């Protein structure tokens, strides 16, 4: 039985990485994620691991690429502007099918923006981000416990599908302290590697690359990647539902805002409104089927995001004509985080009185 700890979300993610067997970390300081490199700079040397504070985000992601190419479990972390810089390396890793975990404790933008809780990088994370039309799995924790659990899961997904995986949080999830039960890493069956560079040792040469110039090679490679994404959509969707069974209105939100929405839904229930919450935990693959089912029963979905409308596009694609979709967004910035009471007011406006 694991002990109960009281830690920050960022520390929980770093602890989850260590528990998952990650021994190589490459990063660069940026608020609000610097607890992660600080924690790992203390811990990894004692575990026979390596910590490097890189010269830049670009340096860090390419060190991750190199360590990952040897088959090692490795990680980097950053926040929005730094993630923009890492996109080059993420695209190369996606192209070369290299596993690796990237923690993005996102902040507000565009530009230097601010350091407040934000969901304005949904498109960047979920729709590829770098050049070349790829996807990477994106996990969106909403608690300190999930920062730990989903970081471990991210490493397994990365190895299972030979892909970079992103954990997307923000300053609320990264900076808050909650109870954490640091459970041991769950047993998982993972495919044997056999692609990693190791020095050929008299065996066949191995090359880790993303350049394909032969006739038809790159098209075939892209179809191969596409097929992997289809398998992920079938097998790896995660979502959480609260009070959706009899709901006439589904509130949909991920990450930090889902916690506020959860309180607002509870308050609405106390007023007699049949409201539920749908929380995508994987943003790619997006839990289309589960959402479509819940939305089809309710007939109405209210999407809440800390931006001007991004995930709402995936909600609309998922539910099609089965439900009416409305949106409430708050672009990030100091003082823009909605209170449960504010969300309750939005729920009241969107709730069909005849459904009571």
């Amino acid at each position: 039985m694991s002990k109960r700890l009281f830690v920050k979300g960022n520390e929980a993610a770093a602890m989850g990485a260590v528990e998952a067997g990650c021994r190589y970390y490459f990063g660069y300081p940026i608020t609000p994620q610097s607890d992660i490199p600080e924690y790992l700079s203390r811990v990894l040397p004692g575990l026979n691991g390596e910590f490097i504070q890189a010269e830049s985000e670009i340096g860090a992601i390419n060190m991750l690429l190199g360590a990952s190419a040897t088959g090692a479990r490795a990680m980097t972390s950053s926040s929005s502007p730094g993630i923009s810089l890492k996109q080059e390396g993420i695209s190369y890793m996606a192209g070369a099918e290299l596993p690796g975990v990237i923690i993005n404790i996102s902040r507000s933008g565009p530009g230097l923006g601010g350091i407040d809780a934000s969901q304005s990088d949904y498109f960047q994370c979920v729709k590829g981000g770098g050049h070349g039309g790829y996807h990477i799995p994106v996990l969106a924790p909403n608690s300190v416990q999930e920062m730990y659990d989903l970081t471990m899961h991210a490493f397994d997904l990365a190895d299972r599908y030979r892909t970079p995986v992103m954990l997307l949080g923000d300053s609320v999830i990264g900076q808050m302290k909650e109870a954490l039960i640091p459970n041991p890493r769950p047993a998982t069956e993972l495919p044997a590697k056999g692609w990693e560079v190791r020095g050929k040792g008299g065996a066949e040469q191995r090359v880790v690359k993303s350049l394909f110039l032969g006739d038809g090679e790159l098209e075939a490679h892209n179809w191969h990647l596409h097929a992997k994404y289809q398998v992920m959509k079938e097998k790896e969707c995660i979502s959480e539902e609260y009070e959706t069974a009899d709901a006439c209105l589904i509130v949909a939100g991920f990450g930090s805002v889902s916690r506020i929405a959860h309180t607002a839904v509870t308050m609405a229930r106390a007023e007699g409104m049949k409201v539920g919450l749908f929380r995508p935990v994987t943003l790619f693959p997006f839990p289309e089927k589960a959402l479509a089912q819940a939305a089809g029963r309710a007939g109405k979905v209210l999407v809440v995001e800390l931006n001007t409308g991004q995930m709402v596009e995936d909600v609309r694609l998922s539910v099609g004509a089965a439900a009416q979709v409305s949106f409430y967004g708050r672009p990030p910035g100091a003082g823009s985080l909605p209170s449960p009471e504010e969300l309750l007011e939005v729920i009241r406006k969107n709730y069909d009185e005849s459904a009571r």
Partner: protein
Amino acid sequence: MQQVFQRPKSLKDVQTHFCPGCHHGTIHRLVADAMDLYGVQDRTIGVASVGCSVFLYGYFDIDVVEAPHGRAPAVATGVKRARPDSFVFTYQGDGDLAAIGTAEIIHAANRGEDITVVFVNNTTYGMTGGQMAPTTLVGQKTSTSPYGRDKSKDGSPIRMAELLAQLGGVAYSARVAVDSPKHVLEAKKVIREAFGYQAQGKGFSFVEVLSACPTNWGMNPLKANARVGEEMIPYFPLGVFKKEEA
């Protein structure tokens, strides 16, 4: 009959795609010779960079990771830290190392990563068709400096071997050329010495190799070869600029 000359074991028995008169083939051979000398082929991980040399995995019979443009020293850092028992080298051109990858090379060198960097300086971007490089000589005409490199606007060519020699983490930094049999023999010795530093775990080693690019210089192979000695060596002097004592 005694065989006195043969293809290095670390080099595949294939034709290269390099242009006639290009020095990459010679430099590949010298790098393979050094790998053979130390018997490290089976534990070598090469890092290919963006440029004409990206296809080095087609010529060297070793494991290879392909790096994004300029990032080979960072990729090599990740490889070496995760597999400290491996022998790691990068092979980079002048656009890759001295322009887009300046931060990566300086910091890998300054950390004293236990890797070897082979830097091929031919004063131009070869793969993309002969544009101005950070090493292009003042007055040299390229496809993006059609009136000649203008020092007042484009700056002066960067001498990387001397620059890196200033950094504390660098164990060995040298510049060689392969435009004459004498220079090739000297280059062979220097590349062996640089690889030797890593073979003994003594830290970061760097060899800059002056190289001809007849195609993008608009010269025949003989004239291009002559230009290395006539124009490049006077600005990029050959020599060992740093050599930490063993």
